[in-house]
């Protein structure tokens, strides 16, 4: 992994800006800082302004694990392509597949809640039904390792077997037939007729994008991580504003 704000990274930001790419971002930990409670996550005013400027001169998308309705509330910018539930919502997925995902998520939610017991919330464990997928959060837990192990024991008993994506203090459960963020990015590129894209994310769920081998992709992780498949990194979430502003400048001077 190389720093994006290096000579090479800056040259690539410029080359991609010339090529009119799709700018795509994860939300939590990328556009918005990670917070204790997921419902408190918000973009800073300056990031919001920068993102609005970028969307005025380029195609911009946000691909998140959050539900589409939740995402729409947090990103009040018109013209952005929003994709929720790791690619399940916001793309051309058949209604029958969504219905199946909704029923499966309901079933998993009851099974997990039953197995975790009544005191789960007091132990810092929350089960979030995102309509088409489930997220089990344990950020507020005092003993994260034990809670995560307990969650995984429960997940192993679920039927049908979910696709598991680990996030930061969260276990995401997605219907195994559903798409992932990488597929979502490729479909967005196809829909918008784009030959190249820049994607920035911070989480393990973004590795599905980072491991894409297609050419014309600039893949950036928030935070350096040895085992990540991303090519470049930003040192911290707060650098996202600088990246967006640089991109706007490069696009406008095109």
């Amino acid at each position: 992994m190389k720093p994006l704000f290096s000579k090479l990274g800056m040259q690539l930001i410029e080359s991609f800006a010339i090529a009119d790419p799709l700018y795509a971002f994860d939300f939590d930990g990328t556009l918005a800082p990670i917070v204790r409670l997921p419902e408190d996550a918000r973009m800073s005013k300056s990031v919001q302004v920068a993102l609005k400027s970028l969307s005025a001169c380029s195609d911009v998308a946000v691909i998140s694990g959050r539900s589409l309705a939740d995402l729409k509330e947090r990103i009040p910018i018109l013209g952005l392509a929003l994709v929720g539930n790791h690619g399940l919502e916001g793309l051309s997925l058949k209604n029958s597949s969504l219905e199946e995902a909704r029923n499966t998520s309901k079933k998993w939610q009851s099974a997990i809640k039953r197995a975790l017991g009544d005191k789960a919330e007091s132990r810092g464990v929350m089960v979030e039904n995102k309509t088409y997928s489930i997220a089990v959060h344990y950020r507020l837990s005092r003993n994260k390792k034990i809670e995560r192990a307990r969650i995984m024991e429960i997940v192993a008993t679920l039927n049908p077997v979910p696709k598991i994506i680990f996030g930061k203090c969260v276990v995401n459960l997605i219907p195994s037939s559903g798409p992932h963020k990488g597929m979502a990015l490729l479909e967005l590129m196809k829909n918008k007729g784009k030959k190249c894209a820049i994607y920035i994310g911070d989480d393990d769920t973004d590795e599905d994008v980072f491991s894409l081998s297609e050419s014309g992709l600039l893949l950036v992780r928030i935070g350096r991580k040895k085992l990540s498949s991303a090519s470049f990194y930003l040192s911290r979430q707060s650098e996202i504003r600088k990246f967006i502003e640089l991109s706007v400048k490069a696009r406008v001077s095109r």
Partner: protein
Amino acid sequence: MKRSEIANLVRANLAFFQMNRLAERKLGLSMVQYHLLVVVKDRPGLSSQQLAVEIGTHPSTLTQSIRRLLAKSALFVAPHPKDSRRKTISLTRVGLALIDRFEGEFGNLLSSGSSSNPVDKSS
């Protein structure tokens, strides 16, 4: 194939080479270099192998053109992010300016240049 048709093909080939040279002298880019830059412009970070496939030629055929474009600072080469043995090619602002100039002025050059290189239309 008739002799005259072959002769026309040879004339067309010579005219192409002359125009290529003229374009590079007057506009800073030959037609081949222009085509290569346009492909790189749309797909930054292509490897030379991928670029060769896009253009429809062998990578070794492109080497000379890429060298000349690097000398003009129209391109930059970087190590492939996932395979250090490979290199990727991307466009610079200088390259973009060259494309814009070529697109703006090539029509005039073609019309002035083509009058001095007529292809035999008798056959």
